[in-house]
């Protein structure tokens, strides 16, 4: 299985995200993550999707099937281009007085941030590539993680050309 990051530009209309995610799941492809947000053009939404597929042929199927949706304007496979991918994670960790200093150390090494604190827990925030986030989470194996929220990857290609002009 190989992972691919696709940038999908769609009409900013209700239900489009459902159309995209529904099509992928009913065609039996595997979504690793999906996120959607506004873009520089108010009528266009960008959906960032990570799919895991068996082969190039299956990836082609994902792209061509999605292209059939009337609301889909453009699909670009960012995996094939030099690009910057990031995801965001928020982690709530059980932290009393005795463990707070250690946690703060880890957070500094990863250039993460403590964004909330209470007598019993901290919430840390990290942005980065998936592998960095995985590594960061691993570091808290000895602590009690209360909960994690991850966004899944978003990405932009390097250089001045936007996806809509590719």
């Amino acid at each position, binding site marked *: 299985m190989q992972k691919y990051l696709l940038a999908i530009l*769609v*009409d900013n209309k209700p*239900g489009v995200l*459902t*159309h995209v995610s*529904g*099509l992928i799941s*009913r065609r039996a492809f595997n979504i690793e993550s999906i996120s959607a947000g506004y873009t520089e053009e108010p009528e*266009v939404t960008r959906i960032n999707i990570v799919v895991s597929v068996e082969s190039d*042929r299956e990836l*082609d*199927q994902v792209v*061509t*099937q999605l*292209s*059939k*949706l*009337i*609301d*889909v*304007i*453009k699909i670009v496979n960012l995996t094939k281009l030099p690009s910057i991918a990031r995801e965001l994670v928020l982690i709530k960790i059980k932290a009393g007085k005795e463990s707070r200093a250690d946690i703060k150390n880890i957070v500094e090494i990863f250039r993460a941030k403590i964004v909330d604190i209470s007598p019993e827990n901290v919430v840390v925030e990290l942005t980065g590539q998936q592998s960095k986030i995985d590594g960061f989470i691993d570091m808290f194996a000895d602590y009690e993680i209360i909960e994690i929220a991850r966004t899944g990857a978003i990405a932009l290609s390097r250089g001045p050309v936007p996806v809509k002009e590719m």
Partner: protein
Amino acid sequence: MNGAQAVLESLKKEGVEVVFGYPGGAVLTLYDAVYKMKFPHILTRHEQGAVHAADGYARATGKVGVVFATSGPGATNLITGISTASMDSVPLVCITGQVANPYIGKDSFQEADVCGITTPITKHNYLVKKAKDLPRVLKEAFFIARTGRPGPVVIDVAKDVFDTEIDYKYPEKVSLKGYSGEYEGDEAEVDAVVRAIQKAKKPLIFTGGGVNTSDTAQELREIVQRLGVPVTTTLLGIGTYPADGEGFLGMAGMHGSYGSNMAIQECDLLLCIGMRFSDRVTGKVAAFAPHAKIVHFELDAAEVNKNVEADLRVLGDLRWSLPLLRDKLSKAADDFRSRFAPWLEQAVARAKEKPFGYLEEGELIKPGALISKISSLMPRDTIAVTDVGQHQMWAAQFFNVYEPRHFLTSGGQGTMGYGLPAALGAKLGKPDSPVVLFTGDGSIMMNCQEFATIADNDIDLKVVILHNSILGMVAQWQRLFYSHHYSQSELKGKTDFVKLSEAMGVKGYRLTKKEELETVLPKLLSEKGPMLIDVMVPEDEDVLPMVPGGKRLDQMVLGGKD
């Protein structure tokens, strides 16, 4: 004008001649506009009937079929028909009522999430909450339904939108960022096909429903004429090439002809045109056309390499690619016909050796004999419609179809109950063509209420029931793969189909003896007006040949005259 009138005005501008539908609470204003504007409308007896009728109309004419239904159950009764149209790329616009804006999302009376439900089975859908959006949405819906790879579009309209007054102006152009509806491809791909044909020794043309849909049968026929190669079709490709055309081998696939399936397995170049390699056509995919370079002419990029990997593809509308191929072949300095003559002769001889057949034993009329007889009695321009099951395959095997859009059947979805409403829709669309429906005693019951629609509108079609008192195709599989356990497939009930149709106003007749094929049948078929002919056939007749699931096309179970 109000939203309802705007809908009808838009339909007029799109050239819609007739709407199929069923009224209800959420579309009362729409139906009031139908009344006031005297808009041609056929009231079916079930919404499923309406959508299949629109489908039959669309397949027979090439125009967009239009359906009205009310909200909730009215809309959900369309689902089977929408799905049927979607699988077979049939252009439909379905206008459904939704509860009024203030009631949406409250689980209100007769509310259903129609857009949510129909998303996987439509080409596109809309929920219209503002009346001012209606003209644009209607314009887009017809454009989307009929261009590119055609398909069904659903427009779900909130009840109060029909009542709202708007300044009506129908847009002249459609502006969709992600959809152009135009598909001209790369000429180099056609050149590559010409080179492949020049290198081939045993090329075979395999045509599908796309040739019917794109009205390119004429170009196809000219290409075949130039090349002198054998031709086979998918189920939906029937009619793209004439049944008596040179080199025609019959339908291919699970119940395809020996000649076709063997030719596919032997050919060295398979020109697949507007088809999608359904599992009913390929048999064991890994062993499909093992010696052939596969060329796929296809409009929908997602169909290329989906089921079968193509060696060459020509991506684009057949209305672009087939004339181009024809012209390039006519200019090519190659005497294709004499070069391919030995292969054509061999393929045709093999097909003649083992044609579709049946054994003439027993007292009852054999399905093959019945359909062959009707085929010989009906005019050449007859439109044959089928339901789904054994009779469908026998019709595909034994009814000679000569023209495109003259064999209408639910292929992809295999929808029992499709036939009767689709046949009435076809007859309305093509009033000058004789229409015959082949159905079974299982299928006919699934939408038999439409006899009433046929009678009330005096729609002249002949309904032929192949009555074997069993769900024939189910029973065939139970016979072959489930030790003759006829679990819930026997229909030895008390229903009298002659009385059933007569109760709804359609004349009914029953044939039980072989000699009636000669004595009674010709008279019945020459009579005018709607008619049911209930023909008693043996219950244990198999559809043969048959490629059992997962087997290669050349591992057919033969039978019949062999």
